[in-house]
């Protein structure tokens, strides 16, 4: 196990992504409102840069108790990151591919030390 330096905590804006390399491994380190997440930057679909796209809330459908449609809305709790090649969406908290949650991106631990961010590989 090795710590790979990502950057200073203060460098990350509220929603932000940095890419680090360790050998042939490319890892996307994403920051969202104080929390850090790291996944392999390789889309499960056609190998695109899965972590280098938009970070956006899950779109949900709102139904009434009688099953009638009310509206679509952005989730307050589930955030996705989107592969910019084809739009594959992943759950920021788990790395799961949201259209088939049996599949997920390889996840890496992130540690903060002395104001710096490291990913563990």
């Amino acid at each position: 196990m090795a710590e790979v330096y990502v950057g200073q905590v203060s460098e990350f804006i509220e929603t932000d992504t940095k890419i680090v390399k360790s050998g042939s491994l490319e890892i996307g380190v994403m920051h969202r409102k104080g929390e850090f997440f790291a996944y392999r930057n390789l889309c499960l679909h056609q190998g695109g840069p899965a972590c280098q796209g938009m970070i956006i809330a899950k779109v949900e459908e709102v139904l009434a108790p009688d099953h009638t449609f009310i509206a679509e809305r952005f989730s307050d709790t589930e955030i996705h990151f989107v592969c910019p090649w084809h739009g594959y969406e992943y759950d920021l908290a788990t790395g799961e591919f949201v259209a088939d949650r049996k599949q997920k991106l390889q996840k890496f631990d992130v540690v903060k030390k002395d104001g710096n961010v490291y990913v563990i590989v």
Partner: protein
Amino acid sequence: MATLNLPTSDLAGMNIESFDTTTFLEHASAQARQRHLEKYFIVDVDSHHYENASYRDIVNYVEDPVLRHRAKSSMTRQSGAVSLFPTSYGSQDMSGRVTRYHTRALEKTPEGHPRDLTLAQRWMDAMGVDISMLFPTPMLNLGAHPVPEVENQWARAYNRWLCEQILPHESRVRSMLYLPFNDPEASYKMVQDFAHYPGVSGFMITAGHQQAVHNNAFMKTYASLEERGLPLAFHGIYNWDDKAFQTMNRFISVHALGFVFYNMVHCINWVVNGLPERFPNLKVIWMESGLAWIPFVMQRMDNEYAMRSNEAPALKMKPSDYMRQMYYSSQPMECGNLKALEVTFDMINAKTQLLYASDYPHWDFDLPSTIIDLPFLDDEGKKNVLGETARKLFNIKETGKLAKIPAA
């Protein structure tokens, strides 16, 4: 430096400061190196550019002076004129999630070389593509214009601009030219006037046209293409305005069915009316409809033909036998069920009839790895699909690897 702000679910949105195709496709180049694409001659039979970025150049090629004036006037923002050209509903960019639809405006290209070619060369090299057929983007909806003369005039202007200003600068980039299919005479004249230009590899009908392919008025156009040995392609498109799609409330629905639906209609008409018997040497390609529809139509038509052959008296074989002689572009290839895909490959004689297509830079593009990685296709089949079948079909003379795949 210009910063692009893409809206997201956050008020702040997403800021992007630069974009470069080669960098964006670094993972595609890595795949090309890992899979040794230097050993394969790759022809991409369906790629695109955004001709709307060049409208102000293209409009000068409109032959009719009154229409040219109307077109120019509609481009002058201050006039407040409604656009002369059809637009379409939809969300090809997935509301910004497929970021390149927006960020391509940030890409720097050198002066003195057509920007569309620079961009094409960059993605072709990144993917390992040697030759590509370049098609327009917004113009795919031009067939929906209510005035055939506008379609014809704009199609002629685009084709002339493409043949005179773009294609001569890069032999790796070619095209199958747009046919104004709402006007049979204009379609015929287009072939006569433009078939001789270097880089013209055939002609293309956007499938959304509400015209019967078996209309007698089109026969001389097909005959002319057959005589010249130039393929005819039907390129998929959707039309949310079509009554058949008006109950659909999501773009995914319209796109999934639309890009297949019109090609299914045209293909069935083509076969049932015996056009393969009338033009046995005309090479017909069905583009950008994926592959899953073909076994469906083959089975459906064979089943009906067995009972109702009197309604298709021109046929001497089953409908599927004719369809097996046609060509199909691969993208967007439905890869979710490899067993079904393998059966599809068998049913369409993919080793000799299937043509690799990327559709780049559109949102559902396919890399050459979609073919290379197929576990059931042998190396000869992969070579054919990726380029050798297209080489024969389009009479491509070049040999050797033309793409300069970026180094690691």
